[in-house]
């Protein structure tokens, strides 16, 4: 009995250590965001300033920056459009690959698999020319098109989920006079809702956090996303850590909130996306 208590205590200490490592950089940034310029020097970076000197000016500075709202709006548009098409194409592609045999099926499956092996960032060297050629440089179309075309993780989540649905479902629907589109739209798609929840949430986090595609394709000020807003903001704050810290906290917030509320779906999807063979 004593041994068991000791073991539990050791486990708790290790876990608390982990929590400290995870929270420390975030917490210290939060502390800095409440400090005045003078307190950045006068108080230890490990402590909050005295209560009377806590300031919200840094947050005010970020929140009144007109480009924050622009970034928020652009991120929301990109999210809504890409996720809509992603879910549509993802579900139907997974459904067909799981349920039908047809010519060139092997080729198509191989193409999707090859897509996963193609490295992410360096592909932009060739893609840049295509996006440019389509006249999409400096437009919201660039990230939307790329997100819709290239993120293939959802296919595995959907395929795994569809394989658990009984085939007899398809057969009876077809016998009842449903055509294939009806079968998909009225029967399969609604059943995929749990998988769709996972896909939407993971996708949203990836898109909100993505830095390089908006940075590369949309340098225009009016096309900032939340993440590129922070990059621009950081460049303008040279050395003023307290205001940058407030910016960091604000940009971190959306995905942290999503995580707090939808953790269950995220953790399920992450594991499903990895074990794909």
């Amino acid at each position: 009995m004593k041994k068991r208590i000791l073991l539990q205590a050791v486990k708790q200490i290790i876990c608390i250590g982990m929590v400290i490592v995870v929270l420390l950089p975030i917490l210290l940034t939060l502390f800095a965001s409440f400090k005045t310029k003078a307190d950045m020097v006068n108080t230890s970076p490990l402590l909050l300033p005295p209560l009377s000197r806590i300031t919200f000016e840094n947050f005010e500075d970020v929140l009144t920056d007109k480009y924050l709202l622009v970034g928020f709006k652009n991120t929301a548009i990109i999210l809504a459009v890409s996720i809509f098409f992603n879910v549509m194409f993802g579900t139907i592609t997974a459904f067909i690959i799981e349920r039908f045999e047809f010519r060139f099926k092997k080729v198509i499956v191989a193409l999707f698999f090859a897509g996963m092996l193609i490295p992410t960032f360096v592909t932009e060297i060739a893609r840049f020319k295509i996006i440019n050629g389509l006249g999409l440089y400096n437009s919201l179309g660039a990230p939307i098109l790329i997100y819709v075309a290239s993120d293939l993780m959802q296919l595995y989540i959907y395929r795994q989920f569809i394989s658990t649905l009984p085939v007899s479902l398809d057969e009876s629907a077809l016998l009842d006079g449903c055509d294939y589109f009806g079968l998909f739209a009225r029967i399969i798609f609604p059943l995929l809702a749990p998988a769709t929840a996972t896909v939407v949430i993971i996708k949203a986090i990836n898109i909100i956090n993505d830095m390089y595609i908006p940075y590369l394709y949309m340098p225009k000020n009016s096309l900032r996303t939340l993440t590129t807003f922070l990059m621009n903001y950081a460049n303008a704050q040279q050395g003023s850590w307290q205001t940058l810290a407030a910016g960091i906290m604000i940009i971190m917030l959306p995905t942290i909130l999503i995580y707090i509320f939808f953790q269950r779906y995220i953790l399920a999807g992450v594991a499903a996306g990895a074990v794909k063979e």
Partner: protein
Amino acid sequence: MNSLAKKRRRFILVSLIIPVFLLVAFVVFPAFDLIRMSFTNWDGYSPESDFIGLGNYISMFQNADLWQSLKNNAVYFVVHLCMIPIELAFAVLLVSKLRAAKFYKSMVFMPYIINGVAIAYAFSYFFSPINGAFDAILDLLHLGMLSQNWLSDPKIVNFVLAFVSLWRFSGYHVILFMAALQSLPQDVQEAARVDGANSWQMFKYIQIPAIMLMVDFILFDNIRGALQVFDIPFVITGGGPGYASSTFTLYTIKTAFTFSNFGLASTMAVAIMAMIVIIYVVQNKIIHGIVLKGGDK
């Protein structure tokens, strides 16, 4: 019957045409185009470019900065590799009888979903040389003499950045290991326990074989991830000082979009693709075989 087959074919065709077209146009075609461009001296904007044969490949192999960058990738790889046993230990810990296990599980994965750019700046602040938090922690522990220029000393900058990478990505592996451990049927574990297996034996003979597939995946993920490290050095140091913290991908991107040498950059991109494919094949054929066989015993 014939009309049904026709309808079926139409359904498949209509549904797949757009997703497959998008995949080919924006993912597969660019990959092939990189190969073609790697034999040219295209600058990114001229309408024309010359075919220069293996010129880019020769200059790539002679590029000392690129080799330096690849060495930096190796730092990330080794640091993450050393972490795998610890990640596994955490997974075992978190699936064991533990109070507040749910809370710890959310904590361990949280860094993975936080905005990477925001956290990169947070760590720039954490390691900053003036009033930096990390130096303050060292002072608190009376280790002040260990203070360094964490982000500007070429000798240590890569390790500091690799630490940031660990902070961000380790939780992902812990969650994957946990999923593998939890997929283990309870009755097998019960039976082993009834037969008198102790924790270590349980781990060695029951848990390890169950997670071998996951180890395999995580190894590949680690190699692929280490080869493609980009945003952490891009935001925190920009690859500097000089090329001290550059990585292969960062250098490639710079070659294209900063120095307008798309031909040479394509060559480097082809090299990354080749490395990933080769590693994938080698791992599938060799390591995969060994690991799984080892697990069967």
